[in-house]
């Protein structure tokens, strides 16, 4: 199984720091696996073009669609990126802000690598600014381009 995406690489970096700071004194080294894989990128905006900055995001996995698998907040550009795990099927992402909401869907293939868009989001409503034809634009970044193991710390 390959490691996944930029988000995971950040997590790994944090883990390395933790190991260096708190690892057992007898440890001979620390290693980090760095890889790249596909992720799902969301861009949520109002139909005015204004990004939905700071909007609440809930990601639902195919086998538990009623409960969020992941929650987060969009960035200043209305962006949000996540890496689905190996569960194949339809993933859903809901974005909400100030009484406006939309949900989008993406299908993940059985090998966990193929991501295909099944639907754009619903229109995101209306009230604030302009009719919130919000669009949650799904994108797929990369396709498991490489897997690379790098040693980040030499044995002491």
């Amino acid at each position, binding site marked *: 199984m390959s490691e996944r995406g930029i988000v995971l690489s950040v997590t790994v970096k944090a883990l390395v720091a933790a190991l260096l700071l708190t690892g057992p004194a007898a440890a001979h080294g620390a290693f980090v696996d760095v890889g790249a894989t596909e992720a799902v990128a969301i861009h949520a905006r109002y139909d*005015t073009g204004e990004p939905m900055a700071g909007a609440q995001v809930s990601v*639902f996995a195919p086998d538990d*669609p*009623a409960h969020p698998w992941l929650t987060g907040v969009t960035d200043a550009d209305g962006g949000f990126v996540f890496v689905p795990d190996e569960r194949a099927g339809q993933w*859903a992402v*809901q974005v*909400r802000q100030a*009484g*406006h*909401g*939309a*949900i989008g*869907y993406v299908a993940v293939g059985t090998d966990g690598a193929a991501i295909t868009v*099944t*639907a*754009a*989001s*619903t*229109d*995101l*409503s*209306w*009230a*604030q*600014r*302009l*009719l919130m*034809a919000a*669009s949650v634009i799904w994108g797929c970044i990369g396709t498991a381009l490489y897997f690379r193991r790098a040693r980040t710390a030499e044995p002491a």
Partner: protein
Amino acid sequence: MSLPCARFCTLATALTIGTAAAAEGTLHLFANGEALAREGFVAPELTRDGWELRFDHVFVTLAGLSALQTDPPFDAAAGGKPAATQTVVFDSIQQVTIDLTDTDAQGRVLLGTAPAPQGHYNAVVWSVVPAQSGDWAGQSMVLIGTATRDGQSVDFTLTSDATHDYVCGEYVGDARKGFVAAGSDADLELTFHLDHVFGRHDLGATDHMNTHALGFDAFAAGGTHEITLTGLHIGHVGEGHCAVSYR
């Protein structure tokens, strides 16, 4: 795999498929006018032109209620015909007039209950239609209440005889809805956003909704007025959007 095991597994699979095909739950369909219907337009959420509104009644007449499983999920922004893989028609409701101010503890009005094959009902279809009978026969929406601004209060009755047809995608709210499992209940909701009719003062004059909403100034004399709702997106599914057409 041994032969007996293979036979057993085949039988078990067949039984599972048979059970799944017959599995049903129950689907409840509600309507909700949100706090704006129940509590009115109260500061800071006044009408776009600064009126406080309190409603005695918000009558809506509904027909043609159906819940759908769609694949791919219906995209209300794109419109078109939903790709339904399962449809539950609330055929016990030929036509029903509800009052969005007369709700249960959750602020909802139960429209109907129907047996439903298991699955995710991620689209809803319904129409707002003129009532065939009753005190407001011929009207599809009737809003009765009191408006107040700058110490002036007027009683009003606003009527519409328009028919609007809604095709909505998935409900969007605090929790996803419409998941029917065998032997269990699920619910869906039609949500009426009255701020699309009157606008919202707290959103500013240039807000897109406010530039389209009727406001209340035109009815400031009180009494009964016919209102034109064409083009206003009143019906939603929670915060989720619907494709709407007027006729």
